[in-house]
């Protein structure tokens, strides 16, 4: 049974970016045509990801990769079509999202764990193991604003992997880790796959997709341009652009 199912899903956004003041709302009322203000971040996308499968998503900037991940994570609802997601999702969509710069690493760790849905008891139990995995024990009582982006990634990834999700979503963030930590994350993700979990992975690095993913899709202007084995999709993707 598929863990993630998209049935002709579209996601529209408004060109204005949404943020509006009272004046803009009033003007909108009086204007006649509004259609041209809309664009599709995703258009008629259908896909299925099965249990213990890992899907790589590639495509240029603005191709709809992040929108796709946000839809799976339940951050927004599709404008058209339907989405089914079965199981607990942990998403690493952006470096340090949900972290507060003035809080210490330890405080952010607990905050982030609760945001991802971990209970107080589970967080207390996992605390040491999370800190160990991140290898930043010496800095854990310092405010996050003093951290490098690599250290923030270490903390964020360590928490996400300890939430023990059924579906792990990673958007490009691994790129800022040093090679050793990347290798460590990589091992952990392999273990995770072997445990029958599902991975959704966005990266601009072809090697990571090739090593981690069973299947890849290539998104282009909101549409699935190609889906298949990572090697073939990566090759096709590299062709026209490179």
């Amino acid at each position, binding site marked *: 049974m598929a863990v993630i199912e998209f049935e002709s899903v579209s996601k529209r956004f408004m060109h204005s970016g949404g943020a509006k003041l009272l004046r803009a709302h009033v003007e909108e009322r009086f204007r006649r045509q509004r259609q041209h203000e809309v664009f599709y971040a995703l258009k008629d996308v259908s896909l299925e990801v099965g249990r213990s499968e890992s899907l790589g998503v590639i495509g240029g900037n603005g191709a709809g990769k992040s929108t796709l991940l946000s839809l799976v994570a339940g951050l927004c609802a599709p404008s058209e079509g339907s989405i089914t997601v079965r199981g607990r999702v942990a998403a690493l*969509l952006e470096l340090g999202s949900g972290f507060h710069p*003035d809080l210490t690493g330890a405080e952010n760790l607990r905050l982030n764990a609760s945001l991802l849905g971990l209970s107080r008891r589970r967080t207390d139990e996992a605390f040491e193991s999370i800190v160990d995995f991140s290898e930043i024990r010496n800095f854990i009582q310092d405010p996050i604003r003093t951290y490098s982006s690599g250290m923030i990634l270490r903390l964020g990834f360590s928490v996400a992997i300890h939430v023990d999700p059924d579906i792990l979503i990673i958007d490009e963030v691994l790129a800022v880790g040093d090679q050793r930590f990347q290798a460590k994350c990589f091992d952990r993700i392999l273990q995770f796959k072997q445990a029958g979990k599902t991975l959704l992975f966005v990266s601009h690095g072809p090697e990571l997709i090739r090593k981690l993913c069973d299947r890849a899709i290539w998104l282009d202007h909101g549409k699935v341009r190609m889906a298949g084995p990572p090697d073939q999709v990566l090759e096709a993707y590299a062709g026209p652009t490179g």
Partner: protein
Amino acid sequence: MWNGDYTFLLSNLIQKDFKVRYRNMSLGVLWSLLNPLVTMTALTFVFTIIFPNPTRSFPVFVLCGLVPYSFFAMAWGSGTGSLIENSGMIKRVPVPREVVPIATVLGNCLHLVIQIGLLLAFVLAFGHGVNRYWLWMPVVWAMEIIFVCGLALITSAVNVYVRDMRYIVESINTVLFWMVPIFYDFDRVPQRFRELYEFNPVAALVLALRDILLKDMAPPPALLVKLTLASFATLLAGVLLFRKLKKGFYDYL
């Protein structure tokens, strides 16, 4: 969808607000005391020396109005901006959105507890004793917190779509300073306006506090009923409206 630990999440978010606020203040919690004291002194100066009035023990009288009002204004104002302020988190973490404004409102509560302590110290210092009606206090304060949570749910959600909401809230708060009997006695309000006043939960709380602390009597049942009705009605309206509006948060934040 999100099936995590609500109380753990809420307590972490409240602690976050609290720590962030006080870590950036060298005097820390002292500000919670200084702020109402300064306003109290200024109002006492104006209304006992420039416009003398017959109200006895004016400082504690005015503090009974200031503490509920300043909590209300702070909690509502910060609650209104909370979704925008946490937009990074809301767009990237699938946490239930209601939690954000509510945590921000509750984050002001420690501040409130300190100010209530100050108020009670003044009440005792001005020769009023402890009485059994003090037991009403947790109830009336809880009603105000429920009321602010409801309001914050409404205005924070609207603020995502119409960013002017923040300024509207600020203006209402300014008007409210005059429309809540903070520095004047409710008896001075003409009879035909009194009914209306009592439906404003902030005014109702001030009246109830003065009954309990300064007049040694229980707040009138009609007042309590209005306070309760208005608070729960606001919360219900807030929850319903928020549920409707939150679908578009991702697009508008």
